[in-house]
């Protein structure tokens, strides 16, 4: 495999006086899919939010392609890090197409025609070619989340971060979103996912990172983790799921 795209090194994160991430070391290689799992409150989502600087870290370093994320121009570095949220956060006053085309138009300065063409392609890729003119309020949760994925892809990021993207969905809508993510994995997109869908984690992940109480407790190849986790915490976590 290739060089690491995203690296965390000794990351400490505090909310006020409370430390929520302890000395996180982690790297994501090119075309690798890393799935972060762990009980709620273990700091998984916070870790992702630190990666695109929605949260600031107190100590340590986060690098994208060897460049410090912390020291970079925040608006520039975020263009290379796609983020998809649990609650979609689509722009309700814009159509699906406008949601996807907005970033390329306003940030990258693409012409309206070029941005719309790209948005059409991306919406087609996530199976929503028929909904380009729909407002988010008229779309199902699964459709909204697929638009959100297309919106993040439109910036042509180096890495995609998925923060519990199926947790707010009705069970029957989870599949369509996971299918899109699997498609991205197959195309070689580098991704970091936080999820509670263990079946999906097993299917899509190259590596599993188990977090607990703000620490990385285990990081293993996916099959190793699910068949015979190396740590006691890993065994405990898996046994509670069964």
């Amino acid at each position, binding site marked *: 495999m290739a060089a690491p795209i995203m690296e965390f090194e000794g990351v400490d994160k505090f909310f006020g006086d409370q430390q929520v991430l302890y000395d996180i070391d982690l790297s994501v290689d090119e075309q690798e899919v890393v799935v972060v799992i762990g009980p709620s409150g273990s700091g998984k989502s916070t870790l992702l939010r630190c990666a*695109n600087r*929605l949260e600031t870290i107190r100590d340590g370093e986060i690098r994208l392609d060897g460049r410090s994320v912390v020291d970079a121009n925040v*608006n*520039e570095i*975020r*263009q290379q*890090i*796609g*983020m998809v*949220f649990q*609650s979609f*956060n*689509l*722009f*309700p*006053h*814009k*159509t699906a197409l*406008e949601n996807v085309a*907005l*970033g390329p138009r*306003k*940030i990258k300065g693409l012409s*309206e025609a070029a941005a719309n063409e790209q948005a059409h392609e991306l919406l087609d890729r996530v199976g929503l070619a028929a*909904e380009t*003119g*729909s*407002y988010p*309020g*008229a779309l199902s949760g699964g459709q909204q989340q697929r638009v*959100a994925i297309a*919106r*993040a892809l439109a*910036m042509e990021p180096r890495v995609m971060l998925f923060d519990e993207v199926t947790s707010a969905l009705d069970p029957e809508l989870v599949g369509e979103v996971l299918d899109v993510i699997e498609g991205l994995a197959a195309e070689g997109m580098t991704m970091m996912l936080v999820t509670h869908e263990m079946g999906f984690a097993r299917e899509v992940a190259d590596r599993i990172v188990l977090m607990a109480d703000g620490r990385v407790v285990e990081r293993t190849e996916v099959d190793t983790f699910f068949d015979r986790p190396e740590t006691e915490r890993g065994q405990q976590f898996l046994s509670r799921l069964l």
Partner: protein
Amino acid sequence: MATQTETESDTGGVMMRDGAVRRIGEIAAAGFVLAIGGLLVWILATQVNYTLLSSPLIAGRFAEAFFLVIRIVAISSVLSVTFGIMVGLGRISTSPITGRIAKGYVEFFRGTPLLFQLFVIFFGIPRLWATGQFPFENWAVPAAIIGLTLNHAAYVGEAVRGGIDAVPDGQMEAARSLGMSRVMALREVVLPQAWRNALAAIGNDQIILVKDTSLLTVIAVPEIMSVFRNINSNQLDPWTPLVWVCVLYLAITMSMSQLVNGLERRSDWGSDSSMFGRFSLSSSGGSDGGDD
């Protein structure tokens, strides 16, 4: 079964059925309409002098006042909404200085009576010049516009801030995560939504602005109430000019609420129908293209 009977007897004894409550409401509302409506008909039949009401003299004076009020309202409205948006943006500024200045502004202009503010501007400001040096010959109307603008910008500012606060944090996060600057995220994502959230409150305030012009009579603006006072003291007939006053204010305020309703409908980005969405897309597309 036992609990069932208990509940039934409970509701029967203590609470009324929904239908009964509705009936009482209907009787009260109908009674109110009959009482007020009867009084109104009686006044219109016995108190109003219809010859005077339709005389060109009185009509002309009210018309003059009416168009003056419309001019004052139009200018103060545009200025107070514009300035109010700036105040609202100041309230959410990341700069603590700007934030505090905007807060202080709102506290002062919301916390003192409009009449006091009008007195400061109308009587106080000209005294800052040496006698005879104040450049405005007819200061009443400019003073009125300044007073109404400063006062209502405070309310509009709070409405705008409330509208911004009501936009979920996730909107700003999503826009920033794409790589937008804070200013761009505000302009493209947050403010269009905040505007819709704030529209009803802003419209409400602008209707109050219309009625606040009635205070201008005390700083010698020849507006609608001053015409009333004039006619009442000359003719010793309050009811006839009051009919004029009522109709003229309602004419302005009701067109204003129509306008606000129209604006609200236009900024409603079809939550349930994508057809509607496509319509408003074409209308917003034009203004969007302008700022590139």
